[in-house]
Structure formats: C-alpha cells, structure tokens
C-alpha cells in the first residue's frame, strides 16, 4: 500500500473566514503503480488533498501514511526530504513552478536539492525531458518562451527529474487545447505503464482521463463521496450527478443505452470505438430478431 489516509480532516487557519478547500474525515487507500484521478468542483478540497501527499500540508486530525512516513495530527513533523523526492507534486500552473532562465537549470533544481552531483543532475534532466517527449534542444530554451503545452511538459519533467515513485498533478490540462490535453493524458498513462510510476491526477475534465484511470475518487465539499473504477462510477452516475458533479457525456450515453437494451450488468463502453462496436452487435441481434419474427 503506497498511500493511506485515516479519518483525515484539514481546516485552514482562520476557518470561519476561509472554509474553502478544507477536508473532512477522509479515508483513502492508493496502491503502488495505480493511475488515480480525483474529480470534483473547484473548492471541493481536491488541491488540499494533494498537498497532504508530500507533507506540504499536515492533517488537522487523523493520519496520513505515505510509504513509511507517517504524518499524524498533533505529532512531531517527520523528516520530509526523502518523501518529497519520492512523491513529486506538479502544480496547476507551470508559471508557479518554473523560475530559472533555462529549462536545464529548472530541471536540475530538484535533483541538486536532493543531493545529486551536477553531472548526475544534468543526466537526470535530459532523461526526464525525453520521458515527456521533448528532445535535448529544449535544454537551453527559456521556459517562459515555450507554448502552453510545452511549458506543462517541462513542469512535469522538473518533477520527473527527481525520479519520484509517485507523481501527483493538479489539473495538468487546464487551459490547454483539446489535442494537447489528450496528449498529456496519454503521456501520464505511459509514465504509469512504462516507468511503473503511481500517477495521481486532479481533474475536472473527466472524459480525457477515463480511458487510462484505474481508480476514481470524487470529492464534494471536502468529503470523499466516491471511490472506485470507471464502471462503478458509471453505475453511480445518477446519484453523483444529483449531488452536483458534472459527468462527461460518454457516461450518460452509456447509461441510457444500457437501460434501453438491458446492458446494465456489462462493463461500460466509454470510448466511441467501444460503444460503436457494442451498438453494432446490439443492432445485429435486433435486426436478426426482427427478421426472424417478420
């Protein structure tokens, strides 16, 4: 078990003024090597939850365990350096994460902080860059002169350069164009598949992550209201929508089709290819039945 939350609550300092983003009574388990997505409206506590994963925030009550590090309310803060290296956190806007005048320096910042030599850091930088699909020609570029999509990739690479076991991303696709978003989702999937990383991503556009995610977590008003697979999510769609979560159209399509044809017990087809294929089979059966009857 890589990550466990036990009855974790978190309240911001002056809580009567800023309730926004607090956490209440969260229980959570995430396994090593999983692709986990956290969905929910803004202010539902998604970002606050993420910041508990590497000790940027400490629980007000309850216990967070990440690998062998235990962060417990009211107890002394453990040494976080190793945890910070093993759990890489990519913030929402690359503008908040990049600050050096070349991509290479930005990539080396993390490794150097965690004790790599200059030579090692540069090696890690170049390796991380290739993991996000950018070549070494980017090393000398100024990060602030890159396009939105490239900047995101560099921001992710700055975290990958520390060779973390878990990579955590806060809305990595916000403000990108649809194709860049799809590319980024696929990139995260490849990191999980090829490098064995645990990937935890906060998103409010569920559709783009749906094909890749093993486990969904839904947050509402600081509480966890759902945890499970896409199939389970699809089955609970009505309930989740009723409580105010915006679900992607592929889920409502499947649910309507499933109800019409009695496919509720099947694994939901959430991509157009899968759904079209399933519909084709349904229609063939239907046609045959009709032909036989008439």
């Amino acid at each position: 078990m890589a990550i466990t939350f036990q009855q974790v609550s978190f309240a911001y300092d002056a809580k009567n003024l800023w309730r926004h983003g607090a956490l209440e009574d969260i229980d959570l388990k995430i396994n090593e090597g999983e692709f986990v997505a956290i969905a929910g409206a803004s202010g539902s506590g998604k970002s606050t939850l993420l910041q508990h994963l590497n000790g940027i925030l400490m629980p007000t009550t309850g216990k967070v365990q990440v690998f062998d590090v235990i962060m417990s309310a009211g107890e002394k803060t453990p040494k976080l350096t190793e945890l910070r290296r093993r759990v890489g956190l990519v913030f929402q806007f690359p503008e908040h994460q990049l600050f050096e005048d070349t991509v290479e320096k930005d990539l080396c910042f993390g490794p150097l902080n965690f004790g790599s030599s200059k030579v090692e850091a540069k090696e890690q930088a170049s390796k991380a860059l290739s993991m996000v699909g950018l070549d070494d020609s980017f090393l000398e570029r100024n990060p602030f002169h890159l396009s939105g999509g490239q900047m995101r990739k560099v921001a992710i690479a700055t975290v990958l350069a520390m060779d973390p076991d878990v990579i955590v991303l806060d809305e990595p696709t916000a403000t990108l164009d649809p194709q860049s978003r799809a590319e980024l989702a696929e990139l995260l999937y490849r990191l999980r598949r090829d490098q064995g990383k645990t990937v935890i991503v906060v998103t409010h556009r569920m559709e783009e992550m749906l094909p890749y995610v093993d486990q969904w977590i839904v947050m509402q008003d600081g509480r966890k209201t759902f945890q499970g697979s896409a199939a389970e999510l699809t089955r609970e769609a009505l309930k989740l929508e009723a409580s105010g979560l915006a679900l992607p159209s592929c889920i409502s399509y499947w649910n309507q089709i499933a109800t019409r044809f009695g496919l509720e017990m099947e694994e939901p087809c959430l991509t157009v290819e899968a759904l079209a294929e399933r519909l084709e089979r349904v229609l063939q059966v239907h046609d045959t039945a009709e032909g036989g009857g008439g």
Partner: protein
Amino acid sequence: MEGTKLAYDLQQVSFAYEPEHPVLSDVTLSITSGSWVSLVGANGSGKSTLAKLLGGLLAVNAGKIIVEGTPLLRETASLIMPRIGMVFQNPDNQFIGATVEEDIAFGLEGQCLPRVEMVSRVQQYAEKLGIQHLLSKHPSELSGGQKQRVAVAAILAMEPAIIIFDEASSMLDEQARGELLHILRDMRSNGDYTMVSITHDAEEIMASDRVIVLRDGTVAADVDPDTLFSDDALLNSCRLIAPYHIRLIQELERRGIKVPPFPNADKEVEGTLWPLLFNK
C-alpha cells in the same frame, strides 16, 4: 441581404507586433449583427490578436475594421468602444473592483452615468446573472465561475451591442463552464448581442452559428460547426476534438450504420439516436 446589418466588416486587415513577424495578414471577413461566431485556431494562429483588434485594444497596421458601419479609427474609438465589451480568460485578472458591486460599477463610472442609473443597472444585471447575493463580496470569497459571472454582468451592464469572449471558459471547472455556456445561449436567443467567442470548447463551438478558423494569421475556413467537426484535417489544424456524439456518429458510419445528423448537441440520446437505431 435586406435587413441584415453588419456588426463587423474587416477588409484586408494585417497586424504585426514586430514588422518581421506578421501575426495577421490580409484578413477579410464580416459578421452579421445578432449572430454568434466562434473563432478557433491553434496556438499562434493569431486568434487572440484578432480578438484584441475586434475589441479595439490594438490598432491595425493595414486594412480596415468597420464596426456597425463606422470605421474604427483613433478619432471614432470613443464612439465605438462603448458598443463593444470583452470578457477575458483569467477570472482574477479582470476583477477591477474590490467588491462585486464596485466591479460592475467600474465601467458605468467611466460612462459618467448618474448614481441612480448606476445603482439600478448594478441591480438589474446582478439579478440577470444570479449574483445579487454576492454584491458585497471580495473576489477572494468567490469561485472562478462566480467571478466570470461578475465579469459578464460588468460587461452587460455597460449595455454593449457586441461582446467578445476571449477564452472566457477555459479556466473554469466543468460545472461553471456549463453554466457560462447556458448564459451565452440565453444571450444568443434573445438576439440583442453580436457575440464573438475565442474558444477550444467543442460544446461552445457547437452552440454558435458559425466558425472562423484561423491558421498562420489568415482565415483558413469559414464554416458552420457541423462542417468543422466532420472535417478531420481542419480539426487537426486547429487542435480541436469533436464532441462525443459526433465522434460516435462518425464511428457508427465507419461501421456501415447510417445515422442522420443530430439536431443538437443534447445529452439526451433517447429522443434522437434512439428512434434512428430502432426504426430501420
């Protein structure tokens, strides 16, 4: 063409920040009053620059922009600018006032409206956008979606004829994005506004009347949304992805299942896809 007025008439418009790197070259197009046009294109296609030119925030290097029959020039700007409102991408950076009320009033103060009129407009447009209960709030107490509503209210209160949305929904969560789209649809249906939206959002594009595709600073296509979304090459050039239902229809057709086009982008499959699949 009788009765159709033009909100915009662009004649061979060119623009460059630096002479050696033209951003827009020779753009000619017109936009009918009361219509809703989506402006799409990849990064660097010039769409944001075009939005700023349309909003009068930049001046053309060559060519002409005619707004409601009057050429947009330095001398006419003071007449034309009040006719145009803009809503930008970042909800935080366009919140000028320290409270919602002050923010809506900011543009009205500039129009030198008497106080009684300002108060009544603030009330009227706050009500229209459902933000009356937020009037005394500071921006840090609002969600992104609420701030964008305030931005729209602040623009509408100035009673412009043309409104430009420069990626106004791209920083919002799904829920808020849906709500903003609903507001845009409402504005379109009452026909009082000419709307130009720069967007990547498939649903928003589908809801508009017409799509202008920019590529490398020129108009690459000027089509209706259905045509855009059935043209893969065009979609790739502006890095868009068609909405789910269109991709589904395309995939079904690829498999030899004929599906007539959807009447709208509604989530309700029952009424549309269904009969088609059954009544064959």
